[in-house]
């Protein structure tokens, strides 16, 4: 049926990519079954789906990293067998991964021509001048603003994306795949990236755009394809879709109660923070959180929200400030102190500061809790596994068991392992930093329910989030930060997302 619809929709337009009947199995797991995926020339095609839906597998097949068990790939109407990445590259496919792939110590021009340097006059030399000239010319054609002589490690994240795109263009890419390109960009950098993507489309390229942020897809994409459980469940023009419909396709159900009803029962003041400053740019922050309250914290990237959490948790040194928990002043100078004083901090960067990826799930869950569960010196693996399994059941973690390595889990389940860790800690004050970043819609909803449950148990929760709908959906109050300072403390029922964004983004005029 989809195939028929495709033919109608694409009649008369050039097809850049046609993947037909792609299936792929990993061991017993069917990652993709009979997926067909068609991308028109000169369009931005969003590819969405929950974590584990098969997006990455499909793109890795396109990039020649994996071989499909069955199916065919046509690029620019030519049948291709992509048995290794270099063949995909030669066929005009360029991948820009989430973690950029640049040589940090080389210049922009050197990166752009990496591996295909133009030879100079003498043997073993390269023609730097020509490389710089061509990079400049290419950048000009697309109206990209970048200095070809700049060293990559000195560039901002957004500029690094430009380098990746220039690299792809130099290799004559006709299809560029971008995997979560805005996940590490600030708002303004993201806006710039969208301009870049549009410029690529004007120049007859096709962009396959993978993102969890559905809002940005709505404004950017011409077509949308939705994968669910390894099957293509929808493929069509963006014009006929909106976010609720896309979400519906992704999860296969309406998310009416996306933000579950709060069972609010706010009690006495639990956490009192006064004049908190840190060497890391936090200036004189004061706030209270009551028992059972979810205090949201909004702000742009770089506003210092994570730094507040780091100072509270003893990671960064405080230069001033007092913290009280249930009326008792706390002395916190390390995470060890914070944990002993019943504070939890769910990090925003689970790979770098959260998980020990090659260790078993159970070890990761109990890591900060060994003393608390009575294993101060001697570990009892049987009891440990049981404790962890119980908590995993409570938040329905999908794993092969408590001894499975964490990196065998999907992103959402890895996040749940970290959440399980702090559930086990039974903290009184819990800081959640971007708890739903990079996890799929279904898992997000579970996180919201969990936050509610924890609040209902009387915990004080500080929820740092860059997604305003999330804060408005779940927080009882929202603090707004800008440049290391608090610039607002609002009740979500009495304000709008626009006003909060204004507070966060615009310098106050006096």
């Amino acid at each position, binding site marked *: 049926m989809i195939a028929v619809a495709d033919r109608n929709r694409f009649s008369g337009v050039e097809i850049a990519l046609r993947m037909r009947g792609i299936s792929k199995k990993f061991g017993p797991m069917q990652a993709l079954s009979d997926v067909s995926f068609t991308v028109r020339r000169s369009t931005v095609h969003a590819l969405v789906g929950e974590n584990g839906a*098969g997006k990455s597998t499909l793109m890795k097949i396109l990039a020649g990293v*994996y071989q499909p068990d069955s199916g065919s790939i046509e690029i620019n109407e030519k049948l291709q067998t992509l048995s290794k990445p270099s063949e995909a590259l030669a066929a005009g496919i360029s991948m820009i991964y989430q973690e950029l792939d640049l040589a940090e110590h080389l210049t922009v021009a050197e990166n752009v021509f990496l591996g295909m340097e133009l030879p100079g006059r003498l043997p073993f030399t390269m023609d730097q001048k020509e490389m710089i000239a061509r990079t400049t010319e290419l950048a000009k054609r697309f109206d990209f603003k970048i200095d070809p002589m700049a060293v990559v490690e000195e560039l901002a994240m957004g500029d690094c994306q430009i380098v990746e795109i220039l690299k792809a263009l130099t290799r004559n890419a006709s299809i560029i795949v971008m995997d979560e390109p805005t996940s590490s960009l600030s708002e303004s950098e993201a806006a710039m990236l969208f301009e870049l993507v549009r410029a690529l489309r004007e120049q007859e390229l096709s962009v396959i755009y993978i993102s969890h942020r559905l809002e940005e897809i709505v404004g950017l994409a011409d077509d949308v394809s939705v994968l669910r459980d390894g099957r293509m469940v929808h493929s069509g023009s963006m014009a006929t879709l909106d976010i609720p419909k896309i979400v519906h396709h992704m999860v296969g159900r309406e998310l009416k109660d996306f933000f579950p009803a709060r069972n609010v029962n706010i009690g006495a003041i639990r956490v009192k923070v006064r004049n908190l400053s840190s060497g890391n740019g936090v200036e004189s922050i004061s706030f209270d959180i009551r028992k059972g309250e979810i205090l949201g914290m909004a702000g742009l990237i770089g506003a210092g929200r994570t730094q507040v959490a780091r100072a509270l*948790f003893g990671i960064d040194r405080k230069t001033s400030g007092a913290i009280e928990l249930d009326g008792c002043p706390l002395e916190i100078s390390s*995470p060890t102190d914070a944990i002993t004083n019943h504070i939890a901090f769910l*990090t925003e960067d689970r790979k770098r500061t959260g998980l*020990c990826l090659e260790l078993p799930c159970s070890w990761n869950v109990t*890591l900060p809790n060994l003393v608390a569960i009575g*294993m101060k010196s001697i570990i009892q693996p049987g009891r440990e596994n049981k404790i962890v399994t119980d908590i995993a059941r409570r938040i329905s973690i999908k794993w092969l068991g408590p001894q499975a390595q964490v990196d065998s889990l999907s992103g959402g389940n890895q996040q749940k392992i970290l959440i399980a860790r702090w559930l086990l800690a039974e903290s009184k004050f819990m800081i959640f930093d971007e708890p739903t970043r990079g996890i799929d819609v279904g898992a997000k909803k579970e996180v919201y329910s969990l936050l509610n449950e924890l609040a209902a148990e009387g915990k004080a929760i500080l929820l740092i989030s860059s997604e305003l709908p999330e804060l408005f959906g779940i927080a009882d109050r929202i603090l707004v930060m800008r440049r290391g300072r608090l610039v607002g403390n609002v009740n979500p029922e009495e304000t709008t997302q626009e006003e909060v964004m204004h507070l966060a983004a615009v310098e106050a005029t006096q």
Partner: protein
Amino acid sequence: MSRLARQLLPFGSLILIICTLSALKPDTFLSTDNFLNVLRRSSVNGIIAVGMTAIIISAGIDLSVGSMMALSGMVGAWVMIVIGGTNPQGAALVIGTFAGIVTGLACGSLNGVFITKLKLPPFIVTLGTMSTFRGISYVMNAGKPYNIPHYKYLNEGVVLGIPVSVLIFAVIITLAGLLLRYSRLGRYTYAIGSNREAAFHAGVNVDSYLIRIYALTGLVVGIAAMITTSRAVSAQPTAGVALELDIIAAVVIGGASLSGGRGTIIGTLIGTLLISFLRNGCTLLDISTNVQLIVIGAIIIVAVAIDQLARSRAAVGQTE
């Protein structure tokens, strides 16, 4: 290659070497004496390799173990002579033994403190102390050994038919195995090696635990030093030159990852025995020590290459 197969590989290789040698040299190789001899020789390396395993699991390295062994032996023997005169006996030997072990503990702690408090890479710190410890060992007696002719028990002593050094080795390896698996120290060692930042964020006092790991390694090096001293009935300032290479090789062959987070004591035991039997076999087959170096080097590279291959296969097998 499954994970199990990867772990069984060193063990399989060990069995293969033993079988091959049994077939080639049934009379000389297959004797209790020869096996006890190999075990006795393995004990010193094995004891040190136990400490090195913990350090490598914590994503560190200790290049100074050979020099540390020489210095511990020299200090131990010097104390014996200071207390008991030129030909020390009895209590002087016991006190000297403890002094040597404490020296190892102190050297290891020093490494740990430098690494954590000065925030220097373990490779650099221990490269430096490797030279410093060796230098002190030479300076102590102007480059000459201390002879202590009565210090024989650790080498020649036998309990229930088993050499004392082998018994000490067995005790240390058992304790270390249990410690790594069933203690908080062991758990934190893996966590620090796997992701130091994450361990810190989870409230692990990383500095304090790293110092403990290096200190304990120093302690076992001190013990190994006294066994070595007993074997030579003298403390040599040249003891343990290039020893760190054999030790690191044994640990890596045993499956530990130099990037941290992976490794087992059993693996290290197998790695140590593998190298010892290999050296023993080469000697029995009249292969020169020079050629042995070539063989052992090749084996290290093959072992690590197989491990890497297996890991990259495993990585490809994962989805998303």
